[in-house]
């Protein structure tokens, strides 16, 4: 133990030493450091990933999540260039006095696009140390073909290689062999524990409020952590600080509406976005009287306030509130009513401060809550069930640009978790019921330091450490349970407030390197070690509102993954095309599954239903992307293998993970026909999911009808090896067209027509079996969800 600690301390010192050594390594010429923000001239919206470079193009940087940049140029540099995809590049003359710049870029019109884009340098794919990271803009997401006319962030990212969809009725996604709970989903830095609406058909992200998304599926830098597989950052728009604008969309099942505008022109802005499904309202008049009371709907709201307090300070306040509500009234007994709801609430306050041209900071206070409520009334009584997970989070991140070849990031992060697995209250007749599953409290700490370091023209490194710790604390009463009977054995341990129940300090080294082979190609490698302290208790393949998040405890050890990735990156035709080939190898420890048939609802002893094992995933991902021009898009291919091994499952033998997908292909083509018409084509193919099927059956629960002498039985399935069967392959093609009816400065109106599954492929949702008494056989049936499905959506902006 001591040895481990000493080793970690040494490693930390070594890292600091390397950083310092690197700073003093090169004698630098006289340089000037510039910093500032890049924004859209029309809206004031900051631009993420805008390129700032010198005229020769050999020195450059990109803006961060807040649109901020800092870069050092030789003092005699006459000007620098700022560019961003879809905007006119701007030449900014160095006046020798100012070191901070507020750069406003002007959006291009269609005719200009080709010319300017070709002049722009888009070699981030080759030069950056980042690998396994992809960004998508909100506009791109909105243009993709959709189901029910509702654009969806999470559906869009599953078109990327290495990211697999859980299926048509699932917004859960699976990254390089990890489960859906191994993805950290952040909305303006707030954790979203359940990203789905409509039981998984749609996600909670309103595309009107999304500026861009950014997913990291490997090579995770040290400033990110908390989950094993991926980080999905959903950045909300800041709001137009120049003029008041509204926009929205009318789809088949919901309507979106948003408003934005300046609070004080050029200095502060607001954005409010909301949407609601209206299928319950539309259908209600036509429902028979006995089921008129049944309805389902969801709504969500986003709010963002953005204040430029001065040259050095910015304040962002953002919030989200969403609910899914299912109301049921029995048609047999009207006194029976059921009300089921769930939803997320988040609030984030962020303060950006520029200390000087070389030091930028962001400090955030974040609150998020996921809750579930369930009310059941039956005339003579009723009960309510509540469960929730609440976090308070404080984080402070700094970016320091000490030299032109170093970008150092460091920061701290603290989260206080409160888990309320369940409270049940109510009455049946005169009997009062009140049951509470003990609350749990935990502290989660993280501190990180990383350096993005360009050694020379060819070599670049990103290396760092992240120190994390998780502390489960009282007040808590821990009951011991008998393993065989699953009943309390009478032993209890009481923990006082703040007393440690379990403590896991962990060390996460991260490193990636880039070697530039030539101006158009590079080789990158990365190593990541990550821990995860929160686990999703679910026994099904899909994420459900009733699923619970449970903390690491003395029995439930933190999940751990290592990931090794190696890739070849190459751009073609002046960076118009970018391509990559990546291989990865990812062993995972302390993976959690639930015993088959585990009882998760209101279970005081949930841990007894868990089993622990290991996972392994490896694969090859190929990606070719054309980002610019009238025809753009990408094609991705993944070959992968993902297995799990649990001593308590499948007789201890390794088995395929449910979402193991040997082959996975995604093709997206977008074409701008003219000013009015644009089109998208999507094709996806994936090897069928691994599933467990019965290998034999038997008759049980004997009875005999005394009047006829006929025996009665239930046919029970007996299951064989875990996930030894493959569902049929999943594939489909979608197409969408956007018709711009009118586009002026004052008003914009467009229609989006899409056809989902154009060749009407029956893709498997699940398989079930039914005994057929006539033929005396058991038959297998495959249920599929969406046949060919046209939809239309009207979008407007004024």
């Amino acid at each position, binding site marked *: 133990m001591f040895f481990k600690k000493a080793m970690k301390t040494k490693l930390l010192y070594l890292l600091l030493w390397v950083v310092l050594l690197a700073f003093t390594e090169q004698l630098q010429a006289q340089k000037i450091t510039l910093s500032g923000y890049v924004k859209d001239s029309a809206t004031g919206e900051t631009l993420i990933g805008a390129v700032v470079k010198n005229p020769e193009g050999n020195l450059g940087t990109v803006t961060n999540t807040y649109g901020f940049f800092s870069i050092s140029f030789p003092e005699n540099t006459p000007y620098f260039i700022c560019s961003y995809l879809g905007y006119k590049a701007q030449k900014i003359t160095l006046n020798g006095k100012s070191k901070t710049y507020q750069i406003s870029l002007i959006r291009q019109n269609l005719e200009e696009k080709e010319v300017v884009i070709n002049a722009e340098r888009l070699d981030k794919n080759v030069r950056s140390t980042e690998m396994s990271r992809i960004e998508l803009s909100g506009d791109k997401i909105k243009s993709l073909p959709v189901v029910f006319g509702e654009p969806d962030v999470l559906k869009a990212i599953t078109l990327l290689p290495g990211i697999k969809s859980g299926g048509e009725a699932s917004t859960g996604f699976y990254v390089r062999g990890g489960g859906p709970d191994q993805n950290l989903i952040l909305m303006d830095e707030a954790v979203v524990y359940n990203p789905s609406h409509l039981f998984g058909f749609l996600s909670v992200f309103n595309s009107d409020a999304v500026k861009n998304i950014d997913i990291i599926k490997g090579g995770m830098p040290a400033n990110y952590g908390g989950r094993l597989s991926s980080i999905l950052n959903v950045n909300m728009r800041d709001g137009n600080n120049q003029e008041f604008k509204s926009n929205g969309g009318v789809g*088949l*099942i919901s309507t979106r509406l948003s408003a934005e505008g300046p609070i004080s022109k050029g200095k502060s802005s607001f954005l409010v976005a909301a949407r609601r499904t209206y*299928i319950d309202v*539309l*259908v209600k*008049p*036509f429902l028979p009287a006995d089921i008129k009371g049944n309805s389902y709907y969801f709504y969500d709201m986003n709010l963002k306030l953005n204040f430029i307090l001065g040259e050095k300070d910015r304040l962002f306040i953002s919030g989200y509130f969403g609910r899914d509500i299912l109301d049921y009234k029995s048609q*047999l*007994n009207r*006194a*029976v009513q059921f009300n089921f709801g769930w939803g997320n609430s988040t609030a984030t306050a962020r303060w950006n401060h520029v200390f000087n041209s070389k030091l930028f900071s962001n400090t955030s206070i974040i609150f998020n809550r996921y809750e579930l409520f369930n009310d059941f009334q*039956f005339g*003579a*009584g009723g009960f309510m069930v509540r469960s929730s997970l609440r976090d308070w989070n404080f984080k402070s991140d700094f970016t320091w640009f000490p030299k032109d070849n170093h970008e150092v990031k460091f920061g701290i992060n603290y989260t206080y978790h409160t888990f309320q697995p369940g409270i*049940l209250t109510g009455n*049946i*007749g005169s*009997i009062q019921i009140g*049951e509470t599953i003990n609350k749990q409290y935990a502290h989660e700490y993280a501190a990180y330091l990383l350096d993005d370091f360009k050694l020379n023209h060819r070599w670049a490194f990103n290396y760092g450490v992240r120190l994390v710790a998780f502390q489960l604390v009282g007040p808590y009463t821990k009951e011991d349970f008998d393993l065989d009977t699953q*009943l309390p054995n009478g032993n209890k341990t009481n923990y006082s407030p703040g007393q440690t129940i379990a403590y896991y300090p962990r060390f996460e080294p991260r490193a990636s390197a880039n070697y530039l082979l030539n101006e158009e190609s590079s080789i990158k490698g990365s190593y990541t070690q990550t821990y995860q302290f929160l686990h999703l208790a679910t*026994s*099904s393949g*899909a994420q459900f509102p009733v699923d619970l998040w449970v903390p690491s405890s003395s029995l439930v050890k933190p999940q751990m993954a290592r990931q090794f990735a190696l890739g070849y990156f190459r751009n073609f035709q002046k960076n118009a095309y970018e391509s990559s080939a990546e291989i990865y190898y990812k062993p995972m420890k302390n993976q959690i599954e639930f015993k*088959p*048939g585990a009882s998760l609802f209101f279970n005081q002893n949930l841990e007894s239903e868990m089993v622990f094992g290991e996972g392994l995933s490896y694969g090859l991902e190929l990606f070719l992307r054309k980002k610019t021009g009238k025809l753009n898009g990408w094609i991705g291919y993944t070959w992968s293998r993902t297995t799990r091994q649990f001593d308590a499952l499948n007789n201890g033998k390794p088995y395929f993970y449910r979402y193991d997908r040997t082959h996975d292909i995604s093709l997206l083509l977008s074409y701008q026909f003219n000013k009015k018409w644009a089109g998208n084509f999507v094709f996806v193919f994936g090897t069928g999911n691994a599933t467990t*099927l*019965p*290998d*034999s*059956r*038997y*008759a*049980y*629960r*004997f*009875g*005999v009808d005394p009047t006829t002498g006929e*025996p*009665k*039985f*239930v046919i*029970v*399935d*007996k299951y064989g090896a875990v996930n030894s*069967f493959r569902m049929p392959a999943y594939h489909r093609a979608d197409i969408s067209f956007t018709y711009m009816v009118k586009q002026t400065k004052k008003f914009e109106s467009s229609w989006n027509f899409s056809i989902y599954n154009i060749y009407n492929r*029956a893709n498997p949702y*699940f*398989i*079930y*079996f039914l*005994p057929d008494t006539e*033929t*005396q*056989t058991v*038959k*297998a*049936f*495959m*249920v599929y*969800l969406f046949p060919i499905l046209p939809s239309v959506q009207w979008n407007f902006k004024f």
Partner: protein
Amino acid sequence: MKTTNLFFFFMCVGLVFYSCEKEIQIDVPPAKEELVVEASINQLTPTLNYVLISKTLDYFNPSLSVNAVSGAAVYITEGNIVGNDTLFDSGNRTQFFDVLDTLIPGLYINPFFTGNIEKPYLLEIELTDGRKITGKTFIPKPSTFDSIHYWFEKNNQDTNAFFYLQWMDGPEQNNYRMVLKKGFLPFLTGWGYGDRFYTFDDSQINNKPRPFLMLNPFKYGDTVNIYLSQIGRSEYLFWDSFRSAANNGGPFATPVNVKSNVEGAIGSFTGYALTQTQLILRE
């Protein structure tokens, strides 16, 4: 306008609830055959004392009947608990016979057998091929209904009845199976002859009056028999897993195999402490 609304209605309902299915052919390799036993004893009703022995079938075998095993030697022995030991005396051994084999193959009964409450029992089976199945169970103390209420919605006797049963759950840990059956016969010919089945324990309500409320399929005028049993813990774990295994289906189901409490076979040997009552549902 009406046409527009109708269009929207059909489109919305159709799209949201549209799902299709088709029959598919699946090639499942043959599995190893296993024995299956269902053994039930109680202190009240002779028709619920039986042992049924069968074998598993390949999944797509063209037969939905029981793959029965006849000709086995089946014995149930009543034992005694002495201190911490459970003793079984071969003098208390009762043989069960497949006397109805031509009618119900694989069924072993003994009409003279009666279980006793708070007694342990040993099941021993030997097949003609020498394979053996053994199991143990215990008949606990039965519960007694404190009250039974039922009612219909006001002015609406066509709707189904609410049932509200209550009994005292003692301080000890209790596990229950309850079966409801419509009809005038005051006994069950096998547990599977019931209409509604419930398996539950007292983890939520312990050592207090236990209410049990059901919205059930019985209507005004029906005669309903209620069978409430206390069972042991391992028996409860079997029937609880059976409930999952027998109702497994749908997109989010997980494959469940039952938690047997017998050795040498899949299945359960369950001792039921039975309480029963009959109601005629009238105001």
